[in-house]
């Protein structure tokens, strides 16, 4: 009986840990099954050092064709599910083929890893980093254990960050001029601006500022574009008159934003837009501005 039970169970437990687990910052990551787990955070050029613990179950020995650990940076397009595109792939052999009798730990180290892209979890695309331990076996499937981690990179603030000022409108209905303090914001930034009403001929009920994420995947004719509204922030209640100016102050920190990604590995781009939405008594009209 024991043998039978053992046949269906993996013959060993594999776990991956980092040396600096205690000190390293943990960030939440949403898994496929909807659960959120905490995973360590790295940035490019960091050393990723840790150990892999393999513990055969019930003290039984088992054979293997070698143990390796890979560091993978993958882009996964959902319309092309199952196909991962690895833009980064590093391998460390941990053990030569042989037998395992008892628990054994393997140290590993990837030093100054180039991780040019940030982790991203979008609607149609996912970019992730994993450490993957593979214990090769004959005849039967390999034992694989993955550990996700997140990469965030910092870029210096742009030297040129002009304010945006634009006059837009619907002819003879609504003319506004808006002004934002900057054209580029960091993730914890505050959007500060002002909206001037130059002409108001429609009955406005309120005005909202929307943050939209535009995610385009694929290339050429196979481009998919998905737009998602991340935040709706009411800026004004009631109908203004001509000459009125409405202040804008939106703290970005409560929202789950990522930097703008331009054409990551020719696979996808992510852009954010600030959209001004006017709601009048009948329908909606939109006016937009990117960032």
């Amino acid at each position, binding site marked *: 009986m024991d043998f039978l039970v053992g046949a269906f169970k993996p013959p060993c437990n594999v776990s991956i840990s980092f040396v600096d687990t205690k000190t390293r910052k943990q960030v939440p990551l949403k898994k496929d099954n909807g659960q959120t787990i905490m995973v360590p955070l790295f940035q490019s050029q960091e050393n990723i050092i840790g150990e892999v613990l393999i513990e055969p179950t019930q003290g039984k020995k088992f054979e293997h064709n070698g143990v390796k650990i890979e560091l993978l940076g993958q882009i996964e397009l959902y319309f092309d599910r199952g196909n991962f595109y690895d833009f980064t792939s590093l391998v460390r052999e941990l053990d030569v083929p042989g037998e395992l009798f008892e628990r054994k730990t393997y140290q590993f180290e990837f030093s100054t890893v180039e991780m040019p892209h940030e982790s991203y979890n979008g609607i149609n695309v996912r970019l992730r980093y994993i450490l993957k331990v593979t214990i090769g076996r004959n005849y039967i499937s390999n034992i694989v254990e993955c550990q996700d981690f997140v990469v965030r990179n910092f870029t210096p603030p742009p030297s040129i960050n002009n304010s945006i000022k634009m006059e837009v409108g619907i002819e003879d209905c609504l003319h506004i001029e808006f002004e934002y303090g900057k054209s580029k914001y960091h993730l914890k930034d505050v959007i500060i601006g002002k909206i001037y009403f130059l002409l108001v001929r429609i009955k406005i009920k*309120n005005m909202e500022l929307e943050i939209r994420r535009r995610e385009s995947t694929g290339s050429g004719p196979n481009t998919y574009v998905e737009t998602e509204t991340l*935040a*709706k*922030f*009411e*800026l*004004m*209640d*009631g*109908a*203004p*008159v001509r000459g*009125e*100016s*409405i*202040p804008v*102050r939106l*703290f970005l*920190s*409560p929202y789950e934003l990522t930097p703008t990604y331009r054409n990551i590995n020719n696979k996808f781009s992510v852009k954010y837009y600030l959209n001004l939405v006017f709601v009048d008594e009948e329908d909606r009209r939109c006016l937009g501005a990117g960032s």
Partner: protein
Amino acid sequence: MISDGVEDEEKWLTAGIAGLQQNAFYMHRALDSNNLRDALKYSAQMLSELRTSRLSPHKYYELYMRSFDELRKLEMFFKEEARRGCSIIDLYELVQHAGNILPRLYLLCTVGSVYIKSKEAPAKDVLKDLVEMCRGIQHPVRGLFLRSYLSQVSRDKLPDIGSEYEGDADTVIDAVEFVLQNFTEMNKLWVRMQHQGPAREKEKREKERSELRDLVGKNLHVLSQIEGVDLDMYKDTVLPRVLEQVVNCKDELAQHYLMDCIIQVFPDEYHLQTLDVLLSACPQLQPSVDIKTVLSQLMERLSNYAASSAEVLPEFLQVEAFSKLSNAIGKVIEAHVDMPTIGVVTLYSSLLTFTLHVHPDRLDYADLVLGACVKKLSGKGKIEDSKATKQIVALLSAPLEKYNDIVTALKLSNYPRVMEYLDTETNKVMATVIIQSIMKNKTCIETEDKVEALFELVKGLIKDLEGNHQDEIDEDDFKEEQNSFARLIQMLYNEDPEEMFKIICTVRKHILTGGPKRLPFTIPSLIFSCLKLVRQLQGQDENPFGNETSTTPKKIFQLLNQTIEALSSVPAPELSLRLYLQCAEAANDCDLEPVAYEFFTQAYILYEEEISDSKAQVTAIHLIIGTLQRMHVFGVENRDTLTHKATGYSAKLLKKSDQCRAVYACSHLFWVDDQENMKDGERVLLCLKRALRIANAAQQMANAARGNTGSVTLFVEILNKYLYFFEKGNPQITVSTIQGLIELITTEMQSDTTTPDPAADAFFASTLRYIQFQKQKGGAISEKYEPIKV
């Protein structure tokens, strides 16, 4: 349909309150467990109830007040959080994450209040940020309430002078700036309200707007409470900014209310020093604004201020308050061409009150005001509007009340010119007011020209003015006004006979134009006024300097004669007769026999020719007898003629009883107690006997006509006369005559044909008791009475 609306509203309010309470409950729970995140979440949800557009301001206010209470608790929590070490700056950011703007701003204001208190940032920066962020609410009702909340929570945190929030960076200027900005924005929202929504609900919206006005006005109140707003700042910053807003909003309701507010909330002293600024705004207001009330309020306040203490009066002079106000009113009236008369008059009335309080010594100012008023009224004809006339009455009454002296008012040359614009009725009312003022203050009008001026004012009472319809006048009212005018004549008095005579002539000239209806009221008063003068002269030596023009009683009597004659046109013979007799008596006292005789003659002629009513005749004859009895100026011949006539008249009266009584009264004409040469016992007896005969005849007539002899009253009366003359020592009246008369009466009383008359019995009994009493009294009288047996 409308009731449905109300019901629906009620329903919405209930729903709103329920939602609010529910979220407040969760909020409290979060507060109790120090759960900031939940507290913010539920407070934002709670405040979301205020986002409704369905409630009228009144109902919305209820919801607001409930939220307000809850926010107080939240504020306490924030304070504690801050004390526990939670960064207030983080809190300030955290509440701004709320997605909906209205809850976000309420929370922001609440935290902002704690932020200022913490002094982690200069108060002015926080205030500025708050007032700026509130721009996000452009919905009038919600915006007004939000800003009112801001005003409320910031009130005690303004960096005022002496406040703990005042510092290097925070000055009172920032406080003022903040309130002014909030005020401006609120006013804009308030004004905008009327343009939103369908036109048919305009009236309803106007009503709702007036319900909200105090929210706006509150800001001005806050401004006035700021210690640091001294005169200079008020003059340089506050007032110009507020007025700019008032003028530019171009809204009738707002302009009226706010002007009123400015006047009410700021100190009088400030108004006085900024009069020209304040006043210059007035002509710029919308034409429909009720500017007169505004200005009146201002002048009323300034008047009261002036009245409050004499020390402030120089300030008024210094700023030339009068001329400024006067100019302003002129400009306002010019700017509002179609201003109704009432507006014009109200303005001038207020200005006049102001002048009287501030410059009681400057009568020329008062006259100037009246003059200006006349100018504006000219060309409008008589004023029809009853409210306007009421205002004119108030305008004209003001100087009377102030000076309590018509003489001062008479110096106002424009006074009568204003009165001309009153309709006849009101003119009379005004005249009565003037007279009452004179009466109340017992003012004496001492010169002829003043009398002229006064009569010009009250001419509505003196004569019929054009367009006066007799039939419309109420009899009682007429009597009352004429009586009061008659009283007025008595108030015209000067100790100097010359001047007094002039006054009398003037009065006479005027009252003779009054027409038959008025003369019976006015002439007696004038006559007695003359007689008063006569009596005054009587004591003095006649014409001491031989001055031809000087007033003599003779001259006056001539005038009197002519005056009474005027009554004949009425005609009022009885009254004239009385007046003639009065004059005769006065002439008697002046020893002017021919004059007295003339008066009597006039009286007799009247009696013969005019008085035909028998009752009137009886009264008249008794008056004649009474007067004649007191005359001592007549010589024998004249007296005989007059007494003879009087006796003759007496005997010709219609009723026997009247005849009898008149005849025994005549007996007195022959017996004047203190004049030896007028004691004619024989003729006295003759009269009494004649009276007895008439009494007898009366009884017989009664017997023939009705079968009983009637009462014995006449006999008892005659008995009393007998006793009177007996006591006075008339030798013709003897004990036996008296005895005979007593017996006669006793017999008559016992006779079957006599009607029992308890009054006559009692009269007789008391007469007999009198005789008994005299008998027992002792002395000469008793001796005289002794022989009479009762």
